[in-house]
């Protein structure tokens, strides 16, 4: 059975090929069959492989399938091969299953679009590339998948390319992630030089032997790989592309920028955990970046008025939580939060997309309102997702995953009260902006009426994801609360246990209470400021201090402004100087010189006989002189 895992990335790729070459000729009924069916088929095989994996686990807890050798250059011979272990299974499950639900949703969402086939082609290519990324057994193949998802992200963000703003957003995404990709490539080069192979399994075995713990070389390798992860996962300082990437259709935002591509960085760090553990500095950096990002993005989300941008900043913030978890050494907690986050964030994006679609492309939250009655299914599913995001206690899956991270921020060996305080305050802010969004969009007076209600294919994925957002957390309950550790046991052969700094059995309950309380207090504050007395916020916004603060927050805390002045303007200034292309001057100079010579020579043809006679005489004189004197 396991020999068929190569079908998992291949079938979506086949779907992509079919849609690219014959998409023009297929009817609007066949296209979603191909597009959704391919991902559905892949998820089916994933489930079969998963059952097989869980029922009789292979030796060494992983399964390797080498298809063929990709290249053989001077002893460096990466293969096209797949490495399938628990971590892979977790990611593949999320990608195919959530991906399948999103494809079903987009079959109805994008139905009226002319480029229906192109959309599904790109989505299938994306799923295929992402699966390649997580299933690769060597870093070169993973880099192939990495670049593939970057390409598909570009293509899908700029899907409606006829608007130049969308194309600009796609370019911005590609260029910013390119910076990260370059750092990652440098990291790969470093690894090749030292290990002469990029096979992940081999590297993870050789690294502790060859590199001492805390050595600078290990730190460099880890930090360079971290650079790549920062780009793809939109963390500080490379987070500026994600809010603008909301220019793409909502299913794209759900799939790529919530559930899968932005978690590629998380996967990278988790997969190479041995390298990161060799370098405490790198781990600290990961944790600090995670903490800073989650706060920054949380504050930016409070000020947004576009519903998708709130969710974009929310994604940045939640991935900050995952990075924090990884930096603390709580590997399985980070992966657990990834899985739960995939469920509720995809749900929230799909729900937001349904709202936007129903209101005929209205994205400004302040123009919505009172949709609770008009779109009931969407409202309840959205509420479930928001509860998971805000980590409402006990009933949502988000509570369990976020609570774990907060607990480990305090009690892990690498944790510190400062990191816990940041995460705690971040949870508070998360709850505020989440329910601000809910109250403004769904409660109050109706400002825009619903044009057409969503159909079955939109509602069903929302319901499935809402259910998962609620019950998904029950596979990992904390120690003092039932102590179900299905998920961490599942991942334990691959990822090491978190090392606790100091035992704090009793304090764990206290922390859980704190976390639960923040969720509820946040709801109250959101209700108070944006539902009951919106005038307070309005007055604050129009005061001079409020205006500048609001402007600062709404523009992502000035990162765009900084990058524009530090990088973009000098570059365009230099390009302007070279507008006439100095190198080109050489070639046009030759042409212009020849033309000038031509002009001066053609002035010699005056048609005047006396001038020609003079020419003859001068020639005669010169020839005579040459004969006589030379």
């Amino acid at each position: 059975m396991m020999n068929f895992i190569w079908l998992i990335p291949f079938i979506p790729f086949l779907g992509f090929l079919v849609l690219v070459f014959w998409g023009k000729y297929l009817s609007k009924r066949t296209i979603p069959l191909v597009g959704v069916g391919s991902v559905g088929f892949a998820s089916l095989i994933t489930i079969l492989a998963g059952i097989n994996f869980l029922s009789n686990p292979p030796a060494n807890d992983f399964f390797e399938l080498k298809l063929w050798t990709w290249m053989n250059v001077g002893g460096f011979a990466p293969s096209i091969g797949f490495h399938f272990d628990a971590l892979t299974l977790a990611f593949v499950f999320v990608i195919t299953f959530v991906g399948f639900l999103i494809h079903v949703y987009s079959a109805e969402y994008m139905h009226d679009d002319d480029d229906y086939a192109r959309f599904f082609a790109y989505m299938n290519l994306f799923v295929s590339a992402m699966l390649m990324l997580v299933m690769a057994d060597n870093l070169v193949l993973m880099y192939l998948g990495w670049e593939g998802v970057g390409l598909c992200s570009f293509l899908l963000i700029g899907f409606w390319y006829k608007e130049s703003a969308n194309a600009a957003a796609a370019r911005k995404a590609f260029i910013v992630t390119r910076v990260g990709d370059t750092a990652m490539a440098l990291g790969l080069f470093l690894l090749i030089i030292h290990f002469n192979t990029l096979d992940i399994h081999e590297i993870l075995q050789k690294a502790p032997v060859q590199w001492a713990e805390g050595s600078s070389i290990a730190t460099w390798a880890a930090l360079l790989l971290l650079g790549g992860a920062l780009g793809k996962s939109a963390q500080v300082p490379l987070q500026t592309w994600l809010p603008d990437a909301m220019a793409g259709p909502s299913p794209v935002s759900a799939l790529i920028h919530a559930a899968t591509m932005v978690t590629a960085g998380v996967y990278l760090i988790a997969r190479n955990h041995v390298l990161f553990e060799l370098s405490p500095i790198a781990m600290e950096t990961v944790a600090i970046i995670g903490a800073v990002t989650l706060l920054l993005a949380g504050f930016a989300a409070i000020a947004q008025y576009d519903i998708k941008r709130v969710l974009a900043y929310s994604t940045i913030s939640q991935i900050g939580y995952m990075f924090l978890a990884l930096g603390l050494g709580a590997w399985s907690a980070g992966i657990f939060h990834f899985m739960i986050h995939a469920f509720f964030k995809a749900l929230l994006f799909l729900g937001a997309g349904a709202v936007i679609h129903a209101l005929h492309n209205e994205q400004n939250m302040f123009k919505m309102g009172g949709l609770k009655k008009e779109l009931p299914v969407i409202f309840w599913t959205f509420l479930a997702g928001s509860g998971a995001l805000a980590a409402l206690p006990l009933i949502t899956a988000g509570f369990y995953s976020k609570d774990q991270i907060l607990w480990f921020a305090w009690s892990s060996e690498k944790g510190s009260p400062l990191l816990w305080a940041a995460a705690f305050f971040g949870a508070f802010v998360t709850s505020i902006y989440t329910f601000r969004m809910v109250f403004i969009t769904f409660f109050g007076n109706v400002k825009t009426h619903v044009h057409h209600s969503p159909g079955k294919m939109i509602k069903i994925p929302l319901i499935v994801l809402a259910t998962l957002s609620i019950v998904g957390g029950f596979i990992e309950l904390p120690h003092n609360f039932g102590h179900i550790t299905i998920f961490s046991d599942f991942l334990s052969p691959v990822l090491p246990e978190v090392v606790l700094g100091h035992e704090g059995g009793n304090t764990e309950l206290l922390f859980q209470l704190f976390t639960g309380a923040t969720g509820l207090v946040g709801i109250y504050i959101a209700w108070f400021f944006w539902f009951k007395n919106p005038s307070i916020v309005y007055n604050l916004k129009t005061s001079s201090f409020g205006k500048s603060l609001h402007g600062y927050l709404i523009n992502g805390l000035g990162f765009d402004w900084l990058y524009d002045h530090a990088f973009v303007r000098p570059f365009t200034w230099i390009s302007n100087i070279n507008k006439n292309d100095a190198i080109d001057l050489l070639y046009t100079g030759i042409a212009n010189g020849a033309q000038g010579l031509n002009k001066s020579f053609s002035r010699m043809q005056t048609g005047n006989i006396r001038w020609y006679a003079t020419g003859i005489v001068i020639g005669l004189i010169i020839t005579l002189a040459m004969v006589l004197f030379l």
Partner: protein
Amino acid sequence: MMILFLITAFVAIAASILAITRTNAVHALLNLIVSFIAIAIILFLLGAPFIAALEVVVYAGAIMVLFIFVIMMLNVGAETEEKKSKWLSPKIWIGPAILSLVLFLELTYVVLSESEILLQSSQITPKEVGISLFTQYILGIELVAIMLMAGIIGAYHISRVKRKVKHRFLKEE
């Protein structure tokens, strides 16, 4: 001999200079004829009597007469008078004069680099010229004949006036 040569040379040069500076075409031509006659005398002094005669007969007699015919046919004389007076300013002839001077200096350099030789005054009789012409240079004679014929035909063809009215046998109905 020497004095005769010098006087004749002086006359030739003066006549030539006058020929190129006259505004009236007929005056210029007449000066040219004087120059040719002077040169014929020099040729005679150099021991080429046949050639001297040929010069007067062909050059001064035929070619210059041809010139005069054309000038009179085209009624040139009156026209050029006014124009030439404007065109005799130094600006026009200073360039050619410099060029000619340079050429002349080069030629003198060539001439003077030879050793000084005195010319004999013995004549080369027409008989010798004739024999040489028709034995050694027979090919040249033939070519000159062809060239003259080409000249005749060319001159006739070029100066033909196209008749506007065709002969009645050549008209197309």
